[in-house]
């Protein structure tokens, strides 16, 4: 096992006063359930720290699950996408932004209790310490470093190492075991510069000024990133939004992210939408809803657009390769840079990434976790989408 690292030095656990902290509520129960745990730990195997279970990744010595897919007592949530952040848990520990987004999507009572944690902040939970680091995936997304004794396991959640003006950049966390996603875990997935893709969109708008451009984008993260990229490219006309986009987008704005003038697409006359750009959930771009637009050009901003057949299957005319997940080069570079000797690979193309790790002399295995990647495939219907 590796020696201690800077981030493993336990800082004073900062918990907001006046708020029930997860650590406090967890401790008594911990002692009751896993009281014996404290004494035996001298060397911990990684699988004693985190273990895949039906409910999700379980930390027994800390008595919590990371991104559980079923309701659990204590959940640590990496980010707000609906396949990772579900309603109905007892206590939830997450960044303020993730908690806010869960509240917006599921309502006030989405969890028994909540506790916010900042990037760089460390909390003791049972026999482990938990520290959050930015994952660069969407606003508020985090990697969770779980340390027991001198073994550190980082559950990265979803992450990307590419620049994104709408969230804190990915931070590399050295560790012993790195749990990586593999959404784009094949060497054919190499995402170029997202700003070049936005230039493609703007060139198409210039070429077809009498048509409307509909950009399919996941409503949490991708949509706001596309808008920010459009603004950065100098596009200053109003951008239209599908009803299902409005809540989260306005939340981004409330967190100080500049997105320029945004308007609801609802109620705008068909002719007035010629030459405009509208952001919509991917499912809406092939739905009845598109009939309100003049001869729409269907675009889709996603890492999947790298593969032509995937774009054609969806009837996409203008594929925009913009991904909030690390591409193959990003995954492999990150894995190497963490210095981890063991890699656990989850949701996506595990086989190829496990093979790559092994060819580099790293211990690697796929984690059989189910229930992730759902938001990518088909956006969960959320408030406002039905009538939008």
């Amino acid at each position, binding site marked *: 096992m590796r020696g201690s690292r800077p981030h493993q030095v336990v800082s004073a656990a900062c918990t907001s006063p006046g708020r029930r902290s997860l650590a406090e509520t967890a401790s008594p129960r911990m002692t009751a359930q896993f009281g014996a745990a404290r004494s035996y730990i001298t060397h911990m195997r990684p699988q004693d720290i985190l273990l895949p279970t039906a409910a999700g990744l379980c930390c027994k010595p800390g008595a919590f699950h990371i991104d559980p897919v079923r309701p659990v007592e204590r959940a640590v949530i990496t980010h707000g996408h609906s396949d990772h952040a579900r309603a109905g848990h007892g206590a939830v520990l997450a960044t303020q932004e993730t908690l806010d987004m869960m509240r917006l999507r599921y309502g006030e009572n989405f969890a028994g209790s909540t506790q916010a944690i900042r990037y760089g902040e460390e909390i003791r939970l049972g026999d482990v310490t938990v520290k959050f680091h930015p994952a660069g995936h969407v606003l508020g997304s985090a990697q969770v470093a779980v340390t027991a004794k001198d073994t550190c396991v980082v559950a990265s959640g979803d992450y990307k190492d590419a620049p994104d003006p709408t969230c804190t950049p990915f931070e590399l966390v050295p560790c012993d075991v790195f749990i990586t996603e593999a959404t784009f875990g*094949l*060497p*054919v*997935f*190499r995402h*170029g510069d997202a700003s070049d893709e936005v230039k493609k969109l703007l060139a198409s708008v210039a*070429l*077809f000024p009498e048509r409307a451009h509909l950009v399919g984008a996941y409503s949490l993260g991708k949509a706001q990133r596309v808008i920010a990229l459009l603004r950065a490219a100098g596009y200053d006309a109003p951008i239209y939004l599908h009803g299902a986009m409005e809540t989260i987008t306005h939340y981004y704005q409330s967190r100080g992210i500049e997105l320029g003038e945004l308007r609801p697409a609802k109620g705008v006359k068909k002719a007035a939408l010629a030459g405009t750009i509208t952001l919509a959930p991917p499912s809406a771009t*092939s*739905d*009845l*809803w*598109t*009939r309100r637009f003049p*001869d729409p050009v*269907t675009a889709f901003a996603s890492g999947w657009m*790298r*593969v*032509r*057949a995937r*774009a*054609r*299957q969806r*009837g*996409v*005319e*203008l*594929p925009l390769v913009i991904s909030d997940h690390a591409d193959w080069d990003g995954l492999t570079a990150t894995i190497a840079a963490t210095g981890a000797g063991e890699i656990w690979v989850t949701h996506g*193309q595990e*086989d*190829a990434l496990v*093979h*790559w790790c092994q*060819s580099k002399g790293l211990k690697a295995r796929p984690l059989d976790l189910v229930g992730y990647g759902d938001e990518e495939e088909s956006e969960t219907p959320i408030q406002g989408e039905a009538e939008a």
Partner: protein
Amino acid sequence: MNRFAELLDRLAYEPGRNNKLRLITGYFREVGDPDRGYALAALTGALSFKHAKPGLIRDLIAARADPVLFGLSYDYVGDLSETVALMWPKAALAAHNNPPPPTLTEVVTTLRTLGKTEMPAQLARWLDELDETGRWALLKLVTGAMRIGISARLAKTAAAALGDKDPHDIELIWPGLSPPYLDLFAWLEGRGEKPVNRDPAPFRPVMLAHAIEEGDFAALDPADYIAEWKWDGIRVQAVAGRDDRGHITARLYSRTGEDITGSFPDLVPSLHLPGAIDGELLILREGRVQSFNVLQQRLNRKVVSPKLIKEFPIHLRAYDLLGDDENDLRELPFAERRERLETFVAKLDDARIDLSPTVPFASWDALTAARANPASAGAGEDADAIEGVMLKRRDAPYLPGRPKGQWWKWKRDPHIIDAVLMYAQRGHGKRSSYYSDYTFGVWTETENGEELVPVGKAYFGFTDEELLQIDRFVRRNTTEKFGPVRHVVHEGDKGLVLEVAFEGLQRSPRHKSGVAMRFPRISRLRWDKPPREADRLETLERMLKAEPEEIEI
């Protein structure tokens, strides 16, 4: 190269014809000579490079990528060029010494002159220099498998739009042009004279017919028209001419002007007199015209084996003469051209070329009777290969396009069955929000009792209003979803009956029902009919005439 790659990339996703045209014309306007000329050559299929093979590309990637990772990737992507383009490793080049990516012109001219042994290293160099889209386009270009839904005709139409010219004019001079088409673009941009077609056997734009409607007859005098059988074959133009040295050059063109001579080398020797015949390509066995299904075995073949030629003997049935030696006959009235044709075919005196007979008639009633029963009106045993009659005005000159009132086609009534809607799929482009592709079935007795078995798929024939109605029905009656496909309720008393019209039936081992329809379309929605009263598979089987067994080639 990157600009051309961007064009190909965009075209590959664009479903609309007009938008494709705009994209191509935009490219021609923006990009200078000679790059745009080579692009036009690539789009019209005028380029081929004999040393570039898919095996070469596999070797290149095998030397650079882990075989397991390549296997998993190829499996996922499903296209060799695309897989290689995407996973090609970034070259570790000195940052200040990067060569610029090659231009399309460099690529084409190099590929033409390069020897087989130099090819791998050169391709690898380019792949290093290009981005993903550029690599994809390069590999598509060298392997000649574009598959982006662009016909040669469409590319020429886009070029014509650059100079506001008629695409027919380009077709006329096309055979005399060669890449990079500097003279063509000079003419299109008003900088030069119209290029002259020095091709001894040029294509002439074809004349097309309107479908006749019941109401049209009242205004027409039978005495003004000549009738012929409408053959169920392929419309072709067979042209022969003398080159500078007096040798005969013969070519066969499709109705859109594509040179299809290569697929029918067995017809070339028969075209031994200079002239231009408009006619129908058929298969004749022992003097008898075979069905379209048989002819289909010879279409779109790159390699034509002696066995194929023997089993499927090609034949040209002539119905018009556009040129006789040096003389252009297109200004002459049809009746006169017909006489010239009869003389010309007699002079050819070749078993592979004969005259399409005229159908004598004195009144529309007489023609109606002939159309209803061609066998007794002179067609004899060939009646099965007849799909109706053609009416041509005696005084009509040969005009390109579809001029009103000159030629009429009067097809035989199609076959009709009532089938039940089983599955629906979203359409493309403008129709992408509508369920507009329908799979329909008929009843059959199985071991599980009465079941519907799919017999075909149709995506047109209905009006816009009917499309809305079916779309609504599909959305409200979906029982299951599989990606873009919806299962629609189809039970004895629940479901939608579609009246389907089609031109012919064929045995098909690939379909569960064992039959395949030719040209099926929705002719009516039978909201009134309960699904259990729809047709049965036996009805279709009865329609299947004893076709000769398909021959393995």
